[in-house]
């Protein structure tokens, strides 16, 4: 495919060649005529090259102007105007030359006059075709199928009519005139298509009128020049250009369109301000709707709202009261007024009759604050006040002022209302978006907290001879208050702890991490179970908040003595299976939660027990998330069900018991969403 540029070059080249060929064949015709030779061949060639020239020029402008997807009306008018200007200047220059050589021998030379005439033919054809192509674009500004059909008939008709010059039919013959008449009729029908006029603003309309009038003047100039060409000198052109139907039709069409467009633009001038106003409204409305997208904040929405409503209502002054928390006025945006004047006007309102406005939207817009009133003010004669709501909450009140009475028509109030609605939607979106961002940030923080807490629970459980230890812990929320840990004090001694912080969520999670710190510190100094509990209570007393406490069960298992020592500090009683007694029971000793008594009195309530164990014994530690787990009937899992569960699972490994307990618990609840944190630690003696 040759590029657009190359095609244009080719067309320009063939245009120039056609014109030169036309000129040369003209000379040959003249030569033959002067010497009584055969002129017919030269005459035919002359007409042929003229048609070539017309076609070349047509394609040149079609490629140049006609093919752009989008175009500016004034730009294309300007292009035609410039083409006409150049053509006219060149034509005028040629006339001057002719005038200057009037009395000279060369001035009467028919070859010279032929050259001048043909230059003018080239110019008028070029100019007419440029105008034609631009008019085509303007007529087809908003196309319909019907319009395109009409246009095609016109264009092909013009092309076909150019063939007339090869026939002997006289221009003034009835047939030619009929064709010309039909084409002129089509021109006039097409000329009523002037939709583009509506898209011009006031200034552009004036410019267009000027340009079009000048274009018409050029065309008329050419008609005059060429019609009377050389008459004074007895010169007869080879072929009168105005005897070509195509050229005539083009003249009629271009001139008709000039007249129509100038008239229509003139009549449209008074209404153009309304059209512009509507356009401003649309643009402002769009600004309000899009304000969220371009990263504007609430203040900017208020600014745009004030500007837009002032411009649509053509208000003389305005202010926008913006309210913050608890309906307190935080600030006011002023347009051509100030605080003192505002107070003055507000005082005047009190003494005038206020007309409450009925609203078409019931709840949120029908607020008593919405009204118009006539003012007895020096400058302003009417006021319109409308509140702006977000979720039933008044966030701002807009007041518009006008220097005429009854300045706010129903239509304007409706438009302002749509602006207000749009602004409140924008602001609401803005606030929702902010909330969403904050929530998202909290979620991220919680995820981090969860990761931190997960790292506080032991990854690997410690164990000693013959003991199988298995554990599970899951928080109901991101973070929880359950805690368990194991510590190998020496080859034969293992410390175990299960704890539960009162409350839930983040505060519980903080206390849980304190408990971890206390366990890890105290367990390393080989304390008895009693001392561990007392010291843990001491440590926690200073750091737990007023209503918080921690319940723990602490075990020290000694595999040498086959004994364990334990203390229950307010925690759920541990479940025990004794292989010797073949019985499952709860270790219900006395005890008090850590942090309940924060002084030495606590020591009186510490209870420590010691038990022997043997192979097959099972110790099941847990938190109340298990016993208090509820099913759909609102029944708790309870102690009895837990005991029954262990009785059925005494022959299984600790790992298996843990898995079974969890699946039984989930089955019971009917879902995997637990309401409370759940922890279990199971030890089986092998």
């Amino acid at each position, binding site marked *: 495919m040759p590029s657009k540029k190359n095609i244009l070059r080719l067309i320009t080249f063939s245009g120039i060649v056609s014109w030169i060929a036309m000129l040369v064949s003209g000379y040959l015709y003249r030569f033959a005529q002067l010497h009584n030779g055969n002129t017919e061949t030269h005459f035919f060639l002359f007409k042929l090259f003229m048609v070539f020239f017309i076609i070349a020029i047509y394609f040149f402008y079609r490629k140049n102007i006609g093919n752009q997807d989008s175009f500016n009306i004034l730009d294309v008018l300007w292009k035609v105007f410039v083409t006409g200007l150049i053509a006219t200047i060149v034509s005028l220059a040629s006339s001057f030359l002719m005038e200057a050589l009037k009395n000279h021998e060369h001035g009467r030379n028919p070859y010279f006059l032929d050259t001048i005439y043909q230059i003018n033919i080239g110019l008028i054809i070029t100019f007419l075709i440029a105008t034609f192509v631009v008019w085509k674009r303007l007529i087809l500004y908003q196309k319909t199928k019907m319009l395109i059909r009409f246009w095609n008939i016109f264009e092909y008709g013009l092309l076909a009519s150019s063939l007339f010059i090869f026939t002997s039919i006289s221009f003034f013959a009835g047939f030619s005139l009929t064709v010309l008449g039909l084409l002129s009729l089509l021109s006039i029908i097409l000329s009523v298509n002037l939709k583009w006029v509506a898209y011009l603003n006031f200034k552009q309309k004036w410019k267009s009128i000027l340009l079009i009038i000048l274009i018409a003047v050029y065309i008329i100039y050419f008609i005059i020049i060429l019609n009377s060409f050389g008459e004074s000198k007895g010169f007869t052109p080879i072929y009168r250009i105005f005897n070509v139907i195509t050229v005539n039709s083009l003249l009629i069409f271009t001139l008709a369109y000039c007249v129509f467009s100038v008239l229509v633009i003139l009549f449209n001038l008074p209404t153009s301000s309304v059209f512009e106003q509507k356009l401003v409204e649309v643009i402002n409305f769009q600004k309000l709707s899009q304000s969220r997208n371009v990263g504007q904040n609430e203040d900017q929405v208020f600014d745009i709202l004030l500007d837009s409503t002032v411009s649509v209502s053509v208000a003389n002054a305005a202010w926008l009261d913006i309210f913050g928390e608890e309906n307190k006025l935080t600030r006011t945006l002023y347009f051509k007024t100030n605080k003192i004047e505002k107070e003055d006007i507000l005082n005047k309102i009190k003494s005038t009759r206020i007309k409450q406005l009925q609203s078409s939207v019931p709840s949120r817009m029908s607020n008593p604050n919405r009204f118009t009133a006539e003012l007895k003010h020096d400058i302003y004669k009417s006021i319109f006040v409308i509140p702006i709501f977000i979720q039933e909450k008044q966030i701002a009140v807009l007041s518009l002022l006008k220097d005429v009475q009854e300045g706010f028509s129903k239509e304007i109030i409706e438009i302002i209302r749509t602006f207000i609605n749009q602004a409140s939607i924008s602001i609401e979106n803005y606030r929702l978006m902010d909330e969403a961002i904050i929530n998202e940030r909290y979620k991220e923080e919680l995820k981090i907290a969860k990761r931190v807490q997960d790292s506080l629970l032991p990854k690997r459980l410690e164990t000693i001879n013959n003991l199988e230890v298995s554990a599970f812990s899951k928080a109901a929320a991101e973070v929880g208050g359950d805690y368990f840990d194991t510590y190998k004090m020496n080859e034969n001694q293992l410390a175990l702890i299960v704890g539960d912080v009162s*409350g839930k969520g983040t505060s519980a999670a903080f206390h849980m991490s304190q408990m971890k710190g206390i366990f890890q510190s105290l367990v390393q100094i080989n304390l008895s179970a009693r001392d561990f509990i007392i010291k843990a209570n001491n440590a926690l007393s200073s750091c737990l908040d007023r*209503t918080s406490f921690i*319940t723990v069960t602490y075990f020290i298992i000694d595999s040498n003595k086959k004994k364990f020592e334990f203390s229950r500090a307010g925690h759920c*009683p541990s479940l025990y299976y004794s292989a010797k007694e073949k019985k499952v029971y709860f270790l219900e000793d006395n005890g*008090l939660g850590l942090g309940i*008594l924060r002084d030495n009195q606590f020591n009186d309530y510490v209870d420590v027990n010691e038990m022997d164990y043997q192979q097959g014994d099972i110790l099941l530690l847990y938190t*109340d998330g298990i016993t208090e787990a509820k099913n759909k009937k609102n029944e708790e899992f309870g102690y009895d069900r837990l005991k029954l569960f262990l009785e059925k699972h005494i022959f299984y490994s600790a790992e298996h018991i843990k898995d079974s307990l969890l699946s039984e618990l989930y089955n019971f609840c009917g879902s995997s969403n637990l309401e409370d944190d759940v922890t279990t630690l199971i030890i089986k003696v092998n």
Partner: protein
Amino acid sequence: MVEIKNTLENDIYTIYVIGEVDASSSIHLDESISEATSKYKKIMVNCSELEYISSAGLGVFMSYINDLEKSGIKMVIYGLSDKVKHVFQILGLDQLLKITTSETEAKGIVNGI
């Protein structure tokens, strides 16, 4: 959710705790006990319609143990269901707070009989 009512008969202030006391509703319990302890010396807490109490709710009762002793306030909790009572017992609060079954017994305790 919890509903808290109160009555004043002679010099005995009675708080009725009705429903469930969980982490969020425990604040209301805390407020009413705090108000009672600031004004009255004889307080009875009727828990006969208390269906459930979470650890946070227990924390509220726990936090007044020292205050009661220091200010010589007599507070009795009564009418607990077995389940709720068990929750108090596990934590060991039954050793520190006065818990009885009937209103008469409770009255006897606050009146120092």
